[in-house]
């Protein structure tokens, strides 16, 4: 499913199928109107075109980059530094009950 559905021959512009945009919408928990879907299809197609463009570059002697900053080994020591912040944290909750965040009912 995650394959680039709707992709045609190489070098041609990426065309996003209805099926694909529907699937991406489900993954992103977005409900799009018909108009928004068309817009999103066009935008996504352009993005993929751009990635394809980058793919044309010869990167055979470039080291793959795994992080944008030249940094490594940033650690904390295993020491408790936070106290009880519940009251503050619950201010961000959509709703609160018994010291917990209220969320839509989930089923297992």
């Amino acid at each position, binding site marked *: *499913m*995650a394959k680039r559905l709707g992709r045609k021959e190489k070098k041609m512009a990426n065309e996003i199928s209805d099926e694909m945009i529907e699937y991406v919408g489900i*993954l992103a*928990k977005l409900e799009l109107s018909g108009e928004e879907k068309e817009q999103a299809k066009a935008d996504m197609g352009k993005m993929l075109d751009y990635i394809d463009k980058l793919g044309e570059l010869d990167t055979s002697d470039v080291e793959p980059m*795994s*992080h*944008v*900053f030249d*940094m*490594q*080994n*940033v*650690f*904390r*020591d*295993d*020491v*408790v*530094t*936070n106290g*009880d*912040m*519940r009251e503050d*944290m*619950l201010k*961000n909750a959509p*709703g609160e*009950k*018994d*010291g*917990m*965040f*209220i*969320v*839509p*009912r*989930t*089923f*297992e």
Partner: protein
Amino acid sequence: MINMEKQYETVIGLEVHVELATKTKIFCGCSTAFGGAPNTHTCPVCTGMPGTLPILNKQVLEYAVAVGLAANCEITRYCKFDRKNYFYPDNPQNYQISQLYLPICRNGYVEIETEGGKKKVGIHEIHMEEDAGKLIHDEWGGCSLVDYNRSGVPLIEIVSEPDMRSAEEVIAYLEKLRMMIQYLGASDCKLQEGSMRADVNLSVREMGTEEFGTRTEMKNLNSFRAIARAIEGERERQIELLEAGDAIIQETRRWDDAKGESYAMRSKEDAQDYRYFPDPDLPPVVVEEGWLEEMQARQPEFREGKMERYKEEYDIPEYDIEIITASKCMADLFEETVKLCGQPKKVSNWLMVETLRLLKEKGMDAEDICFSPANLAKLIRLADEKVINSTVAKEVFEAMFDSDMDPEKYVEEKGLKTVSDEGALKKAIEEVIANNPKSVEDYRGGKEKAIGFLVGQTMKAMKGKADPGKVNEMLKGML
């Protein structure tokens, strides 16, 4: 039921989650202490507030490496974190920070032993990740409630190769991991309490086939017994499907131990498209040679090594060695006490008899033992030097087991020392002889056993504080 014309082989691989014994969460300074009131161990990082920055707890990495080294893994010298994306309310960031592309450990194995002999179970990888929050379903409110205290608690996931063929092998493998990790102090690995969780990937195939069958993943297994039952149940379910000519669907199933059956799960686990990508908030971890050597040097002696050494160093039965080394705490207690008193046999006896009895009676684990090696050593010395008799020693031990008090002080304060004053003892015996003419007559008439009663009466008169051997000896002399 099952047509046994065809022989089937069960193929099992395990994903084991282990909660690490750090004081704080993996990416923030919140406490991991169990049992806090809901959301009292939370902060903007572990509740997924925008703009917060996770910082890796160094101890998490060191525990993960320690487990990897113990499981003969290659340590990934350049490792990083990835985001696993899914929406579920227990996951406040809408992604879990985990490792997909460069997990910290790879390509290891552990050796297990079952009735069928020794066998290696391959470890595909071990990666670090964060735990999710806990969902509570509000029956009346028609909503769910979330407690994020557990969100961000560090986990390692140990992924085995599909190398196991029976429930027995699975249990041996889990026992092995648990022992190893407990020896490392990296986790207490309690299945019931969820600090060790096992998901079972299982498929069946006709004996002799090379190709794997379609597998299912089973969750919610929180005891060794449930694991064994779930394996048996799933094997049968799959064979029945195959025999009926039906296909097995690759799915996640939840085991219901009360009903003894599993059912397919419909939830977040259904969305298999996690769209992993590198987490830009966390810089890579580079494990330099020197650091790795340091970690390697810190590895403890594991159970197998201890068992071998005990056999050579201490003159105690092999059975005792097995029991004592089955718990790191017990083994440490044993060694420390022996160091102090130099009497392995006596230390082993106190552990094997009284300690195990009290643990069982009180429903405790060896990890819950509170008395110190120093106090046990003192008690052994008190009994050795006959300052107290063996009955009193047991009484003192029980008190020490409960509160780790100093046995010397306790004996002093409670006046439990054996009375060595021969005059007092003689006086007590004279009284017992005078008051029990029947028994005295019996003994004199040749009934050897009658002396037992007289010793008992004397001990009672002495309030237990006499040496029974000595009482016996004196009685015989005086009768």
